[in-house]
């Protein structure tokens, strides 16, 4: 379904989960990959009738039994080889509990929820993916989709920002992407020990050197809101259409079905109308100062 701001997909709430959107479905952890000191990726397999397959950019509500439930973006859509994957950073009690789960453990899943990345609107154009910190996780399926249909897209730029080299997600995968024809992958960190041969500085410092055509680019941004704002502004200043800059917003999602209001942002509920929206739509909402 096409959204009002240029192709953002939405999904019917009732279609997602066999028992309804508020009832978690049991999944088992089949694989646990330690990404960084505080971040793991869990691969899941359904124990009960599965939820609907997620699309890139959507999120699940993951329930760590006895601890709580949190929204976690899909970092790998299900394939013939893999179940759905979620990359989780341990920042609180629930995410710490999820990060501790070992293969064989049980987790509750609701979802998938929200509007995902409308990757198809980038067909025929260049693609820019900018991920900051854990923000790279929801963008990984975008790159997977571009790679799966490589001939449909132009040049691809992937820029990654992290605190330190040890905090960079998916380094082996970034190397594989770097070897793809037409791909330009760069990583920058805030600080590094001597020996790091990547960049140190703001992610915007890499934009000028990227061989993509700004006026023919669709950009997918996810990370700290300030980072997305300065990247979006830089892109607009050099000719990118704000409607072709997609951002993933993070708000306090609880119910995930536009009932509780915790994630309300102006007239929209981020859980259902987002998390992915165009910058043309996001900019005026994020410009509102809260006193």
């Amino acid at each position, binding site marked *: 379904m096409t959204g009002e701001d240029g192709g953002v997909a939405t999904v019917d709430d009732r279609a997602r989960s066999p028992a309804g959107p508020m009832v978690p479905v049991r999944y088992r952890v089949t694989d646990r990959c330690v990404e960084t000191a*505080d971040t793991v990726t869990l691969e899941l397999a359904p124990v009960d009738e599965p939820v609907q397959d997620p699309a890139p950019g959507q999120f699940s509500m993951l329930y760590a039994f006895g601890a*709580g439930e*949190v*929204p976690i973006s899909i970092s790998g859509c299900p394939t013939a080889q893999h179940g759905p994957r979620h990359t989780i*950073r341990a*920042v*609180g*009690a*629930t*995410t710490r509990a999820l990060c501790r789960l070992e293969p064989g453990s049980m987790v509750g899943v609701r979802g998938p929820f929200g509007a995902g990345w409308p990757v198809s609107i980038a067909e025929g154009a260049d693609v820019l993916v900018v991920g*900051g*910190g854990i923000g790279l996780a929801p963008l990984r399926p975008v790159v997977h989709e571009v790679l799966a249909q490589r001939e449909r897209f132009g040049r691809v730029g992937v820029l990654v*920002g*992290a*605190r330190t080299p040890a*905090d960079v997600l998916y380094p082996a995968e970034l190397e594989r992407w770097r070897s793809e024809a037409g791909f330009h992958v760069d990583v*920058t960190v*805030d*600080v*590094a*020990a*001597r020996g*790091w*041969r*990547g*960049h*140190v*500085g*703001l992610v*915007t*410092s890499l934009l*000028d*050197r990227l061989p993509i055509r700004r006026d023919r680019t669709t950009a997918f941004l996810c*990370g*700290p809101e*300030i*980072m997305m704002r*300065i990247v979006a502004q830089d892109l607009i200043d050099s000719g990118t259409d704000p409607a072709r800059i997609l951002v993933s917003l993070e708000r306090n999602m609880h119910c995930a079905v536009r009932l509780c209001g915790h994630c309300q942002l102006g007239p929209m509920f981020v859980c259902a109308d987002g998390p992915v929206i165009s910058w043309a739509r996001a900019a005026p909402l994020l410009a509102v100062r809260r006193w």
Partner: protein
Amino acid sequence: MRTKTIRDLLATQPVLAGLDDGDLDLMAGCAHNEVLEAGVFIAREGEPADRFFVVRAGRVGLEIHAPTGPLVIETLGDGDLVGWSWIVPPHRWVYDVEVLERAHVVAIDAACLRDKCEADPAFGYRVMKRFAQVVAERLQATRLRLLDLYGTGDDG
């Protein structure tokens, strides 16, 4: 094919946009080309900032010593200016600068250029405006990094 002069090379650097032909001639008179190999230090913290560089190609890292060892706090590459301590007393480098990837640079003699700036205040003002722009951009980037954007919040 005509060999590019130092002035030609400086004219192609966006970071020097705004300097007119005469300005570039003055600057080129204080400059020469260098190729710097990876691992070479082109500046050391506390030493006189007697030159600065425009990176044509390659990469350098600004480093500072910490109790845990040297830390790279910024990398600079194609088209970037390296060094503004030469223009601000006491004209000493604030950081070590190591060449990370073989670099082609235009090296500019700081004392020579300072003298020309003093002798021609209008030229000096235009040079200062270019460097103020660079310093302002780096200050802004530093402030944003101080926010620790990628740090962990305390959430779920």
